[in-house]
C-alpha cells in the first residue's frame, strides 16, 4: 500500500447488540488531505471515530495507519501512534483545572528519573495553557477553576486547545464547534486552516454545511451506519450533500448496500 | 463417627487453645471425623451452622455458644442429634434433653477470684484505707465480659473490699493494643491509681506495657486479669503481673469430645460437668506454664 495513504479502513463494522451502528465502512485519506464526515444524528460518525482510535474494539474490519495495519487496545495506543482526537464527549476530568486537563497524560515534568513520581512543571504548563487557549479566543476568567465550573463552550475550547497544542500524524475532531460562539468558531476554523497549511491531515465531523464547504477537500456522508457518498468539494454543493444525508440520493459505488 | 463443632469465634486466644486441643485429641481417636466452624460471634450463624451439620448428617455436635441465653434455640436446631455445650453454660442447662450435655466452667468464679486476690494484695500492701483504680472491660456485648465486670463490682461491694474505688471503666475490646491506648489515655489525666483490673490477660498486658512505657514502677500497682495465657505467665514471671485465673482448656476440650462420643454410643452421661477455675499468682504460676 502506498505510503501516501494516511488512513485506510476496510469493512470496518461495529454492532452494539442488535444495533448495527457501523457497517462495512471502506475509507481512505491521503497525506495533507482534510476530509469531512457528515450525516444524520445516529448515522455512526462517532462510532467510526471510536473504532479508529481504539476507544472501543471493532466487531470486524481492518485499519491501516500510514501503511501499517493497526489494532489499538485503547486510546493511549492511538495517541502514541500519532492520532490526536477531540471526542464528542470531550473527555475532560471535571475536578481538574485547565492546565491539568490540557496536559493530562503528557505532563511537562522534571526529575524524570523519579519515574511515576517525577515532578510536575506547573509553571511551564500554565504558560503553555494560556498560549494555547488564546489561539481559540475563548475567555476564561480563571484557568485554575475546575472544568466542572466551565461553560459548555469553554470546555470545548479546552478540548480543542489540547489537540491543537500537540503535533500529530492525524487529527480527528468530532463536532468541535457545536457549542462555540461566533468568535470562537472563527478561531477554531483558523486553527484548522493552519493545520491544512502545515500539511497535517484532518478528519472533521460537523453538521455545519458552511463550515464544511469552507474548510475541507472532500466530504464523506454516513447514513444508517453505512458510507453512502464520497464527494470532492469542487464537484458538489450543499443541496447535493443534503440529498445524500437524507437518503434522497446514494452514491453510485455504494448502491449495492442501499436499504 | 462424625462430630461437628462450632465456636463463637476463632480469633479468641483462649478458645484457640481449646480448639487446638480438641483437634489434637480428635486425631488421636480412630475413625473420628472432626470438623470445626467459626460462628464469628453471630448467633444466627451459629444456629444455622448447627442446622448445616444436621443437614450433612453428622453424628454429634459440639457448641461453644455465642450467646448463653440462646440455649433453647440452639438445642432445638440440633433436633435429636446429640449435642454438647462446651465452655459456656447455656441458660437452658436445667432443661437439656437426654441427648444433650454440657461441659464448662462457671464464669462467675473467674472475675471474682481475680478481683478478690487483688483486693487482698492491696490490703497486704497497706492500702486498706483506700485504693483507686481502673477496670478494663472486654467487648461490651460479650457475656463473659459483662459477667466478669459484674464480678468485680460485686467484690468491691463486699465489706472487706469496699475500700477499693473504680475511677473509671472502659472497654478495650479484649485487645492488647487498644488497652495500651486506653491506659495511656487514663494516665494522661495524671490521677494516681493503685490497681488495674482487666477482663482478660491481653488487656492486662497492654495496660502493663503502657504503664512501663510511662515509667511506672509495677510494684506500686496491682494488676489482675483472667486466662493465664502463656504470654501472661511470662509477664508474671518478669514480676510485672500480679493475678490471673486459669481455665482448663484441655479438661473442657477432651471432656466435651468424650461426652459427645458417649452420647453417640447411646450411653448415659452427666448432663452438667463443671470444671473449676484456678487462681494463678507468682507463687503457683510454675504449675501452669505449659498448660494453656
Amino acid at each position, binding site marked *: 500500500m502506498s505510503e501516501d495513504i494516511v488512513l485506510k479502513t476496510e469493512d470496518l463494522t461495529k454492532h452494539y447488540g442488535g444495533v448495527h451502528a457501523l457497517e462495512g465502512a471502506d475509507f481512505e485519506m491521503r497525506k495533507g488531505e482534510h476530509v469531512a464526515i457528515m450525516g444524520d444524528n445516529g448515522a455512526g460518525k462517532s462510532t467510526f471515530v471510536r473504532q479508529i482510535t481504539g476507544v472501543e474494539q471493532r466487531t470486524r474490519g481492518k485499519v491501516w495507519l500510514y501503511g501499517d495495519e493497526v489494532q489499538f487496545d485503547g486510546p493511549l495506543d492511538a495517541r502514541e501512534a500519532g492520532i490526536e482526537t477531540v471526542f464528542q464527549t470531550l473527555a475532560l476530568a471535571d475536578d481538574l483545572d485547565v492546565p491539568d486537563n490540557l496536559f493530562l497524560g503528557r505532563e511537562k515534568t522534571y526529575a524524570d528519573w523519579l519515574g511515576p513520581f517525577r515532578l510536575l512543571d506547573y509553571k511551564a504548563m500554565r504558560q503553555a495553557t494560556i498560549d494555547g487557549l488564546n489561539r481559540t479566543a475563548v475567555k476564561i476568567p480563571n484557568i485554575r477553576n475546575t472544568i466542572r465550573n466551565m461553560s459548555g463552550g469553554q470546555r470545548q475550547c479546552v478540548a480543542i486547545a489540547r489537540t491543537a497544542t500537540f503535533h500529530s500524524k492525524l487529527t480527528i475532531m468530532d463536532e468541535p464547534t457545536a457549542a462555540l460562539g461566533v468568535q470562537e468558531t472563527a478561531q477554531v476554523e483558523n486553527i484548522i486552516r493552519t493545520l491544512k497549511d502545515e500539511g497535517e491531515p484532518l478528519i472533521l465531523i460537523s453538521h455545519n454545511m458552511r463550515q464544511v464547504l469552507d474548510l475541507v477537500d472532500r466530504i464523506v456522508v454516513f447514513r444508517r451506519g453505512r458510507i453512502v457518498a464520497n464527494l470532492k468539494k469542487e464537484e458538489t454543493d450543499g443541496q447535493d450533500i443534503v440529498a445524500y444525508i437524507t437518503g434522497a440520493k446514494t452514491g453510485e459505488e455504494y448502491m449495492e448496500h442501499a436499504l | 463417627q462424625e462430630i461437628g463443632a462450632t465456636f463463637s469465634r476463632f480469633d479468641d486466644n483462649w478458645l484457640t487453645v481449646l480448639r487446638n486441643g480438641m483437634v489434637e485429641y480428635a486425631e488421636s481417636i480412630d475413625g473420628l471425623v472432626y470438623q470445626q466452624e467459626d460462628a*464469628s460471634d453471630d448467633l444466627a450463624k451459629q444456629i444455622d451452622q448447627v442446622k448445616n451439620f444436621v443437614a450433612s448428617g453428622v453424628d454429634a455436635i459440639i457448641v461453644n455458644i455465642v*450467646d448463653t441465653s440462646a440455649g433453647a434455640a440452639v438445642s432445638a436446631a440440633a433436633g435429636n442429634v446429640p449435642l454438647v455445650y462446651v465452655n459456656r453454660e447455656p441458660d437452658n442447662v436445667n432443661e437439656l434433653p437426654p441427648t444433650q450435655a454440657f461441659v464448662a466452667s462457671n464464669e462467675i468464679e473467674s472475675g471474682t477470684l481475680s478481683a478478690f486476690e487483688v483486693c487482698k494484695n492491696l490490703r497486704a500492701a497497706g492500702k486498706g484505707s483506700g485504693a483507686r483504680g481502673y477496670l478494663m472491660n472486654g467487648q461490651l*456485648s460479650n457475656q463473659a465480659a459483662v459477667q466478669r465486670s459484674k464480678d468485680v463490682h460485686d467484690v468491691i461491694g463486699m465489706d472487706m473490699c469496699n475500700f477499693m474505688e473504680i475511677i473509671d471503666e472502659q472497654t478495650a475490646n479484649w485487645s492488647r493494643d487498644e488497652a495500651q491506648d486506653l491506659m495511656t489515655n487514663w494516665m494522661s489525666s495524671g490521677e494516681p491509681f493503685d490497681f488495674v483490673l482487666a477482663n482478660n490477660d491481653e488487656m492486662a498486658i497492654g495496660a502493663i506495657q503502657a504503664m512501663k512505657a510511662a515509667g511506672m514502677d509495677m510494684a506500686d500497682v496491682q494488676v489482675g486479669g483472667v486466662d493465664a495465657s502463656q504470654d501472661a505467665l511470662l509477664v508474671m514471671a518478669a514480676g510485672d503481673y500480679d493475678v490471673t485465673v486459669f481455665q482448663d482448656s484441655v479438661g473442657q476440650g477432651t471432656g466435651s469430645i468424650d461426652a459427645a462420643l458417649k452420647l453417640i454410643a447411646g450411653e448415659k452421661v452427666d448432663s452438667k460437668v463443671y470444671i473449676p477455675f484456678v487462681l494463678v499468682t507468682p507463687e503457683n504460676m510454675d504449675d501452669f506454664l505449659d498448660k494453656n
Partner: protein
Amino acid sequence: MADTSHGTGGLTFDKSKRSWPNELNILLALIIIIVIFEAIGQFAPYMRDQSFLFDTKDRFDSIFNEARLQIIVLQVAIIGIIALGVTQVIITAGIDLSSGPLVAATAMIAMSFAQTELVNGQPNPKALFGTWAMDLPVIVPVVIGLTFGAMIGAINGTFVAYLRIPPFIATLGMFLICRGIALWWSGGNPVSFPTDSYAFLGSGMMPVVWFVALAIVFQLIMSFTVYGKHTYAIGSNEEAARMSGINVRRHKVMVYMIASILAAFAGIVLSSKASTAQAGMGEFYELFAIAMAVIGGISLTGGRGSIIGTVLGAMVLGVIRSGFTYIKLDGSYQLMAMGAIIIAAVILDQYRQRNRA
C-alpha cells in the same frame, strides 16, 4: 409494528441479538458452584459418596436432601431481607452501613416488649421491664421495632438528602450510634424468652416466607411503580432527576426509611429465631447484605441492579456456606474460599456482560 420494534425514523433493529438479562449470569454462577460441590462430594476420597443436594442416606421422602435445601435459604433469609432494602439504597447510588447494628438495636428493643412473664413456671430471669411489659400482644413489639427502624431510616435519609452527608459517612455514623443504642438498652445483657406468638415470627421456615414474600413485593414495586422508576432515575443521574422535577430529597428519605424498616424487621425475625436479643447481633450483616446485592449484579455507582439479582446473590452465599460445611472445610479456609468465590462470581458476571456488548 412500531410498538414492537421500538424504533423511530423508520429504523428497526435486530431483536434476535437482544442481550440476555444480567440475572442469568448469576444464575449460571450459582449452578456452577453447586456442581462443584456435588463433584467434590462425589470424588473427594474423604467424603465417602455423599451428595450435596441429593438424599443418599434415604432420610427424606424426595430425592433431594430436604434439610440441605431448607438450610441453604434459611441461613441467608434474614440478611436477605436486609439486602432487599440495601439494594434500593444502592440503586440510588447510596449505601447503608447502619443495617447490621440496626438489626441488633431493633432486636433488643422489640424483644424487651415481647418477653413472657413465666418461663417454665419461673419468673423470666432476663426480664428487662416490669410486668406491664410482659406478655403483650405480638403487634406491640413489632410496631415498636418497625417504628424505631423507620426513625433511624428517616434520620439517615435526612442526613443524606437534606444535609448532603455522603451516605457512607452518614450511615457509618449511624452504625456507631445504633451499636451504642444496642449496648446501652440493657447494659450489654441479653434480653430473652419471648412470648409464643413473637417466637413464631422467626420459627422454622418463617424467615424464608418473609424473605420470599418481601422480595416479590419489592421486585414488583421496583419494576412497575413510580417509586421504582424514580429510584433508578436518581441513581442514574441525580442532577437530571432533580432537573426533571423529581423531588429527589423526599424520595431519598423514603428509600432510606424503607431500607431501615426492612433491617428492623430482619432484627425482629432474627431475635425471634434465636429467642433472644443480644447487643452483638448482626455483626457484618451490612457487609454481607451489600455483598449479596453486588453479587446479584448491582452497580455501586447507582442506577442499575434488581431485586431478583439480589435474591440470587443471597442464594450464592447460602449455597457457599452450606457447601463449605458439607465438604468439611476448616474455618480459616472457609473465609478465604468465601472471599475468592464472591470475587469469582462477580468476575463471571463482568465477563459475560462485556462479551455481550
